[in-house]
C-alpha cells in the first residue's frame, strides 16, 4: 500500500480506537480526547513522515494547544485558578 494512504488509514484507525476507548471508559472531558488526538497525530507523522503543506505551522499550533491543555490540568490539580 502507498505510504500516504497507509498513514491516512492508520491515523484514522488510531483516532477511532482512541475515541471509542475513551467513550467506553465514560470519559467526559473534551480536553482528554483532544490531547490524545494530538499525540496520535505527532506519533503517526513521526513514523510515516507524510508530505503535509504548512506542516511546521500545524505542528506548532497543535503543540501549543497540547501544552495549554497540560497547563490547565496541572493548574487544576494544584488548585490554582486560571
Amino acid at each position: 500500500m502507498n505510504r500516504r494512504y497507509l498513514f491516512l488509514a492508520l491515523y484514522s484507525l488510531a483516532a477511532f480506537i482512541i475515541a471509542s476507548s475513551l467513550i467506553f471508559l465514560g470519559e467526559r472531558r473534551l480536553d482528554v480526547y483532544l490531547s490524545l488526538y494530538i499525540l496520535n497525530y505527532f506519533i503517526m507523522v513521526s513514523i510515516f513522515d507524510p508530505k503535509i503543506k504548512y506542516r511546521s505551522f500545524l505542528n506548532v499550533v497543535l503543540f501549543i494547544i497540547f501544552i495549554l491543555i497540560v497547563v490547565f490540568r496541572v493548574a487544576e490539580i494544584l488548585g490554582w485558578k486560571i
Partner: protein
Amino acid sequence: MCFGVVFVLVYYFLYFVVEFAAIGLAAILIGVVLMLMPSEVMPSEPIKALLEGAVANIECILEEIAPQGKAVYCFIKDKVYAFVPVTINPVSADIIEAIKMPLRLIMNVEGSDLLAIIPPAPFREFPAEGDAESLLDSIIVNLMELADAVYLKKEGDYFVVRAIKPRFIGDYPRFTYSFGSLISCIAGTILAWCYKTVVQFEHETRLEKELVAVYRVIEHE
C-alpha cells in the same frame, strides 16, 4: 472537517453530549490533515515505468558506444548532465572544460571522449534549493518508493549514500557499470543539483538489505 465543526458546535454547545463532540474533534483533525496533504502526488509505479524506459534507452546508447568510465554528474545552467568517459577516466580539468563547451552526444576534450547523457531522474520534483538528504528521502523513498530509507554522509571529498531495503528495476549491465542502479543514478543527480557541483560516481556495493553508493566531489562552485 466541516462535518467535525458542525458536530462539535451542535453536540457540545447545544446538546452537551461530549462523546459526539469528541468524534467531531477527531473528524476536524483528520479533515485538516487531509486538506493539507497535496492531492497531486503521482503514484510511484508510472514514474518507475517511465524512468525504466529512459534507462533502457541509455542502455542501448551505452551498448553502442561501450564506454569504459563511470558517470560524472555536472550541474550546468539549471540542469544536471552526466558525462561518461568513453575510453579512460579523464582528469578533473577535462570534465570542467567539457562543461564550458556546447553540449553534444559525444564530446572530445583534450583527447578524451565523453558521452553526455541527461540522467533519468524526476527533475520536475527537484526544488530550486534544498537539503540533499531531505531531497534524497523525498524522491527515492516517498515519491518513487525505491528504498525504505536513504542516508547521506560526507566524508572529506566523498559522499556516501546508503539506501535501506533498496528495490531494483530491470537488468541493465552497461547502465549499472557506468551509473550504478537507478537509486545511485538519481542520488548522483540530486547531489550535483543540491550542491551545484560536479560529482563522480565511484562505485556501488549491494549488501543484503542495503545499497551503498560512493561519489567523489570533483569541483565546488
